[in-house]
């Protein structure tokens, strides 16, 4: 039994007007999910640590002046949460729009077309057009790895690759370089991926990547569905007490 169970208590809270019970070690996102409420999310992926970075999952909590990210906010007794107000919907739409404006997403020529988390988010959040000025720098594709390709033009900086590589594979090949809009994910202090000493070619990063930024060579668009089942499984295995 995970040790957290012993120290948590059961509380009652309200999500979108509905009373629900939950354990205090659960996040708002987890509890909402149990209730069948899907909160848009991008940096969150079950099985990896949460960093509260993409801000898509922000929710309103009564009495809190600030919006809080549901993926990292634990529930507490009497909490009243709203997950889909007009204000939140508008903000989420803008966040998705920002991602499309930031890099270069020409879906028709992308390997992930049709099974891309970013596309799905656009649909989910009702983003129909990009009204913001495009930033879209031209970035160099890294095809040096024998099996995989990294196309930074499609990267949304969710750092799922960084986390899976560090937390699950234990290789820590990926990291972040630079700041602000100039930040990029890199392999081994900026070496081409193919020359990385640490990469084990396990492909976990490719599987968790939400977009067409990381993909396998020679795989057709139809086959590009990412396989992530290993994550919750590995996580559960690790939580079994030694």
């Amino acid at each position: 039994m995970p040790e957290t169970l012993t120290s948590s208590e059961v509380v009652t809270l309200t999500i979108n007007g509905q009373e629900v019970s939950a354990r205090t070690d659960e996040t708002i996102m987890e509890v909402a999910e149990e209730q069948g409420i899907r909160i848009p999310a991008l940096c969150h992926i079950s099985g990896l640590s949460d960093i509260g970075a993409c801000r898509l999952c922000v929710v309103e909590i009564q009495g809190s002046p600030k919006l809080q990210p549901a993926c990292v906010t634990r529930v507490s007794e009497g909490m009243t949460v709203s997950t889909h107000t007009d204000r939140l919907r508008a903000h989420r739409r803008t966040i998705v729009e920002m991602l499309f404006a930031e890099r270069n997403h020409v879906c028709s020529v992308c390997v992930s077309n049709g099974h891309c988390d970013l596309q799905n988010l656009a649909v989910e959040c009702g983003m129909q057009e990009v009204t913001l000025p495009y930033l879209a720098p031209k970035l160099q594709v890294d095809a040096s790895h024998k099996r995989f390709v990294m196309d930074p033009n499609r990267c949304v900086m969710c750092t799922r690759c960084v986390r899976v590589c560090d937390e699950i594979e234990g290789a820590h090949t990926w990291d972040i370089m630079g700041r602000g809009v100039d930040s990029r994910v890199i392999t081994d202090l900026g070496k081409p991926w193919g020359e990385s000493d640490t990469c084990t070619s396990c492909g976990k990063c490719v599987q968790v990547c939400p977009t067409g930024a990381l993909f396998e060579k020679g795989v057709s668009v139809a086959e590009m569905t990412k396989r992530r089942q290993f994550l919750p499984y590995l996580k559960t295995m690790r939580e079994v007490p030694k």
Partner: protein
Amino acid sequence: MNLDELESTAAREREQCAGQKCRLRVCTGTGCASAGSDRLTEALRQRAKERGLEGEVTVTEVGCLGLCAEGPLVKVDATDTLYQNVTPNLADNVLDSLTGEAAGITVCNEKQPFFTRQNRVVLENAGYIESDRIESYIARDGYRALLHVLAEMSPADVVAAITQSGLRGRGGAGYPTGLKWSTVAKATGPRKYVVCNGDEGDPGAFMDRSVMEDDPHRVLEGMAIAAYAVGANHGYIYVRAEYPRAIKRLKTAISRAERQGLLGSSIAGTSFSFTIDLRVGAGAFVCGEETALIASVQGNRGTPRPRPPYPAMSGLWGCPTLINNVETLGSIAPIIRCGAPWYAGIGTEKSHGTKVFCLTGAIKNTGLIEVPMGITLREIVFDIGGGIPNGGTFKAVQTGGPSGGCIPEKYLDMPVDYESLREVGSIMGSGGMIVMDQTSCMVDVARFFMEFCMSESCGKCIPCRVGTAEMYKLLTRIATGEANMNDLAKLEELCEMVRETSLCGLGQSAPNPVISTLRYFRDEYLAHVNEGVCPAGVCPMNARKGVTTHA
């Protein structure tokens, strides 16, 4: 060192100073140093030697005397005169003044409001002590507060005193210091830490730098008292790498204090131990944000993380951690020495004590000032600051740097306190105060700060990473005359969205300069957008060049 030893050290030092026939205190603060005060010190020493005045004249290097605009400044104790604009070639004139009339050098009037309207608490030693000599600090009651606390007060008493003083964090947000201390004191963990935030990243601000350079022991004493109050035995000072002098002086101060038994194990013979390490930051603005600072001290990339948990509960290596700003910690010793009621008596109902500001921009007396809370902006700008030079007219004053806003003339009589500043759309911030006259364009000002936030955004969260770049792009459109009303509407929309959704304070406050200039100077934005003119004549407006004729 116990209290008796401290007192005899102080007495010895005071006696020695009184014995010096003629002490020349040369300001070597940031402003005067750039005006050549280092060379002046050399020249004074050299000429004194050549004129056989070696035994009589002592030249000491002290910290910022305040009126940086008129530097280099030299104070002659024997005649109680302050001289201004003393360039190195005027060394002889200073020495001449000791025996006869002062000729060729300008006396600085110390009765002018610039000096008389200030209330120096944190800066009480600036201009008096030599930062590398601990005796110099001790002679001005240094470390008395620490020894008093260790001998007479329980940790809970100290927290109560700080709470009673009404001190609020000077790092920007104004969080009640006593409350923060009591949270850390009550938190449980295997160890606790005290961190001094000396990252000071606001463009144009150098308050914390002055304190660290000119009076480093004050910071150490504040930290030690804080550590005793919250139950910590180890502390870090996080200083940005751009402050090599502060780093050097703090290092010296730490080793001197250790040698005197005022830091280290069994301080003053008690069971209390406290050590301090220095951490040099990599010069990113965001590393001043407390969770990013923690990551940086631990050797990781300096990016913020969501709070809660707050550092008070889970900070350095997951332990309860007290993070305070340099100026906050610099206020602690005087509060203990003079009493919480004294400190609480300065200022307004909700903002107590004094605040250090860096007065810059279109103002006569640029410099470092410390004023009681509640003073009006008008008093700061026109009395202390001496008004706008060159016959200019006041337009706005910017406080809070990239997280703050521009305050127009109609609020000049507003008291300077946390709540009032927030009400008018700015913030107290860490103490930058930029005065602007009619030659400043508010769009340009907003664009300047947005560019700063864009390049300092860590890039972790989308609203700040992309939002600041988008807002900068829109502001650039306005400044070049390419924008239409849709762009302006988009800009306002983004301000709201970035403020509400960003992860840390940098993103949450990045829109403030835009919001406040739009609130008070909307007509300027409209002139850019609708008429294609920059009323102040600052913005390039190249897209419209030749299109408009009425300027």
